[in-house]
């Protein structure tokens, strides 16, 4: 098991190198001179020259990459052009809303997706099953940002139950914080809930056909126990994969959702920085989000190895 985890850790090295390359070359992708692009339309030639020197753009590309990545590894992601603060500080100040939004959305998708999938599988071909699966198909197809827009229209503009946009820090007022996040989290999490419900249903159906389920029933175990104790744990593995993938989708989706609900998180920072071409912030935020994503996937994989004895034992052969 340790060997497997070590191998998984080593496989991160090339991934992180490629991630670094991509983020570094983002500014070199832009047509024309990055310094001119960053300085803006009204900049003088001297200002562009000065910026080019400051950014080290007059040095060879590989040298720029090495110095950029060593600085990034030390946590120095440069300074924002607009915010007058280090990129890492700017990201740090906005991490709470994004983290909580992703977490709430994940919890909601699990709380909705699991029971829905289990009930649909147990009551296969009933109206509950059909209703759940049609809703799930709708949930997969409705873009989360548009769902968010509709929820604002109905729940905030018309019914006035929830605030349309904004944020309250968790430590100031956890309840108010939740009121601000419940709509974004629901609109973000519904799609994952739908995916999860579909996967849980199909893997439950598969497991319910297994011999040990029949054995459990034959020896007179109550149906509820059969479902929860015998079938469900074995149907968990595909669901775990989906939950692992969810984290990435939710992190990405949070960027768009934050824009809809005006949540002051990392996602809105990225979008604002794109619109004002604040490249150090774009690079820094993309790097941090990708690193978190890679880390989450790593944790999921390790949890996987620990949870599933078939994977754990296969390394010995």
């Amino acid at each position, binding site marked *: 098991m340790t060997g497997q985890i070590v191998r998984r850790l080593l496989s991160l090295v090339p991934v992180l190198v490629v991630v670094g390359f991509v983020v570094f070359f983002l500014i070199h992708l*832009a047509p024309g001179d990055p310094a001119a692009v960053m300085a803006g339309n009204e900049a003088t030639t001297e200002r562009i020259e000065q910026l080019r020197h400051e950014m080290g753009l007059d040095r060879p590309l590989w040298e720029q990459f090495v110095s950029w990545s060593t600085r990034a590894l030390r946590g120095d992601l440069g300074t924002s052009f607009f915010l007058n603060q280090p990129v890492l500080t700017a990201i740090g100040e906005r991490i709470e809303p994004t983290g909580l939004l992703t977490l709430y959305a994940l919890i909601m998708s699990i709380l909705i997706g699991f029971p829905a999938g289990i009930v649909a599988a147990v009551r296969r071909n009933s109206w509950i099953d059909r209703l759940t699966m049609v809703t799930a198909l709708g949930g997969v197809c409705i873009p989360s940002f548009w769902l968010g*827009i509709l929820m604002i229209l109905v729940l905030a503009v018309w019914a006035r139950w929830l605030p349309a946009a904004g944020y309250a820090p968790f430590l100031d007022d956890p309840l108010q914080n939740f009121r601000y996040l419940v709509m974004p989290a629901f609109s973000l999490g519904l799609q994952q809930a739908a995916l999860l419900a579909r996967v849980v249903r199909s893997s439950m159906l598969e497991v319910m056909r297994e011999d040990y389920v029949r054995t459990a029933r034959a020896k007179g175990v109550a149906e509820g126990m059969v479902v929860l104790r015998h079938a469900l744990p074995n149907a968990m593995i595909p669901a775990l994969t989906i939950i692992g993938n969810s984290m990435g989708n939710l992190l990405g989706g949070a960027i768009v959702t934050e824009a809809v609900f005006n949540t002051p998180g990392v996602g809105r920072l990225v979008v604002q920085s794109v619109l004002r*071409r604040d490249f150090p912030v774009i690079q820094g935020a993309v790097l941090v989000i990708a690193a978190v994503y890679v880390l989450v996937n790593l944790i999921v994989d390790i949890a996987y190895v620990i949870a599933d004895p078939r994977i754990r034992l296969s390394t010995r052969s």
Partner: protein
Amino acid sequence: MAQTPAAQNSIHQGIRSRSSQFHWLWLLSKDSGAVIGGGVVVILALLGIVGPYLTGWDVMKVDPNNRLLGPSLQHLMGTDGFGRDVLTRVLFGARISLLVGLATMVFSTIIGATLGLIAGYVPKVDGFIMRIMDGFMAFPSILLAIAIMASLGPRTENVIVALTVVYLPRIARLVRGQVLVVRELLYVEAARVVGAGIWRIIFLHVLPNIISPLIVQGSFTFAFAVISEASLSYLGAGVPPEIPTWGNMLHEGVPLMAAAPWMSVFPGVTLAIAVLGLNLLGDGLRDSLDPRIQEH
């Protein structure tokens, strides 16, 4: 040489499917979801091509006297903040969105499949290609698209480039996995023995046998690309704002949501219908092209 049971099984399936090469089309036509989905996509595409000329309104013409009118017989979906007909713009948006989705699907499939075929068939470059693909997949997809758009600038062509970069690693990974199975099959072995060149084997013998999952993945890529284009445009980092797309219309409509909900409801409904159609078509293709599911 020893064959795994799985490989032998797929040889039999290969023989069976050749005797009824278009059997899957028949299966597809029996799948009501796929027929509805395909119909929705075709109708939206046709409406996108001719629809804007049929409504009697101009996509771009500003009419200050008729701003923010609710739905009526003249304007079935109302008018926007500049007095333009929302229905005409929604139909025009179908053209742009489906074009971006189609182009993304075609380019990411061609490039992704080529990379996957090479990686799967040539062990020397396998590690190199796939580690790069892994690196690209380490970004949440919409984030990578936004980052690429940030440096390329908002243009329709750039949206296609950005989304192609986002989706091609997934296709490469899928294709590589399939190639690893197919390359061990007897007819590939036979082609190698009679001295067929590597490109000939890859494109003439391997590719035709992995086309089914590629088609299925293509239809889902189309759906993802349509959503992503709308998200990018909504954020202001996609198709230039002066071109009517569903995402751009939502971008304009949301601030006016309380006064003119039709400006955001109708483009969003059409977007959801398009994605639903593509997903139904993809589900149907998967069921009719995948022999393992057929047998159940």
